[in-house]
């Protein structure tokens, strides 16, 4: 479905995750963060960058992996995104929700 945000129309799924990463920009990231009650700091942006790079490399994301990213440890990750950190961070980064590995 379509959603108007930061003056742009983007495609999102029923859970609000962007379905076309090429539509993402920083202004959209800012707005998605606000919707999730998060004020983005430099550290948030650094992590979003990391998450997007992993996504582009088709490398599956897990909380363990974020903890070993060198950007934050898991405690810091929770401090940045207190509620469902991986789900929230990926939503703001404009990438699909990580599928829990079967």
């Amino acid at each position, binding site marked *: 479905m379509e959603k108007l945000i930061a003056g742009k129309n983007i495609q999102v799924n029923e859970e609000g995750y962007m379905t076309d990463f090429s539509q993402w920009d920083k202004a959209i990231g800012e707005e998605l963060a606000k919707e999730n009650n998060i004020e983005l700091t430099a550290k948030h942006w650094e992590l979003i960058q990391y998450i997007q790079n992993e996504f582009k490399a088709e490398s*599956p994301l*897990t*909380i*363990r*992996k974020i903890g*070993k990213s060198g950007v934050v440890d*898991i*405690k810091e*990750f*929770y401090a940045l995104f*207190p*509620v*469902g*950190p991986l*789900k929230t961070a990926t939503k703001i980064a404009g990438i699909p929700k990580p*599928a*829990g*590995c*079967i």
Partner: protein
Amino acid sequence: MKQLLILGAGTAGTMMANHLHHKLDKKEWKISIVDERKEHHYQPGYLFLPFDIYTPEQIVKQIEDFIPTDVDLITEQISKIDGNASVVKLANGNDLAFDLLIIATGSKIAPEETEGMLGEEWQKSVFDFYTFEGALALRNKLREWEGGNLVIHITEMPIKCPVAPLEFAFLADAYFKDKQMRDKVNITYVTPLSGAFTKPKSTAALEHLLAEKNIAIESDFAIAEIDNESKKIVDYGGKEVSFDLLVTVPTNKGDALMERSSLGDDLNFVPTNKETLQSKDFANIFVIGDATNVPASKAGSVAHFEAEILTENILHYIKQEPLSASFDGHANCFIETGKGKALLIDFNYTHEPVDGLFPFAGVGPMQLLKESRMNHWGKLAFRWIYWNMLLKGISIPFVTANMKTAGKNF
């Protein structure tokens, strides 16, 4: 003589030895299989051991009884795989050169990954049931336990047999009902996932069953530590769950051999082409079963389907043909729900489990994603099928390596 070497004589390795000794020319190929253990365990039996449904004798047999006599069985520890030199180094100092290598070293629990898991309470009030020792210790505990908060917990994904902890919860409910003490036990199911399972339709069906059996669910729980003193599990976000008895599925990792050989990812699983099952690093190394990083369930049924595909691809590889057999991620799992009933799910990389009839469209007799007695008998019959057909590489009638979509309600 060319050398085909299999590492690991568990479910996947044993099946490959049996398939290949029928298919390879014995004048040209010598097959060897290495495992440090002497016993082969029927791992699905670990689920039933704590509830006194199976006895230890029913789930333990000797590895050598399942390896064909013309396959060389080497009982020795493996120190390292040197992919560049195509050599496997053994702990006794011997080197085994190979032309073709199959890695089937499985996955195992790593409780040391979680702070406090191996603390004071380990095997006192904190148990696993993914090892024979753990399942047996838990059986002894359950026999005398007087009740309280039972917490069933998954540390992180991926785990071997992702439905096993749910089955444990269902069987625990039935076990305490039978002992006339269900009213003395609170059961909570704690998972790092957002719901009972990874796929939407089966999650809905399974959450319905949890509610029906009065089992509480605590989702999105990423464990930071086990507090042994106050008997609590604590998550990174600060959530806490108190337990009197904790049954946990620790982090699952591939064999430490992969770390020593620089062949694994951060959990020691081997990067593997999910369709051909060839290692991503070396053309003459193939990987099967729990040892791979492919996004399929870590389960015996998956290893069984993979074995058929891998046998074809190994024959292609030897003839220098394209690896045309393609694994689709097919898994087929019975989910024991207690009181003589079970669910059956059948799925692959692209199709989630749905309801329908199996294996014959419109006929069954097994029902998918619904509780039935027939499914339970299927699950119990499976132990016989495992020892007598599966390990020997005999196909299960009417169940194909790649998934069928007929008879299913997508």
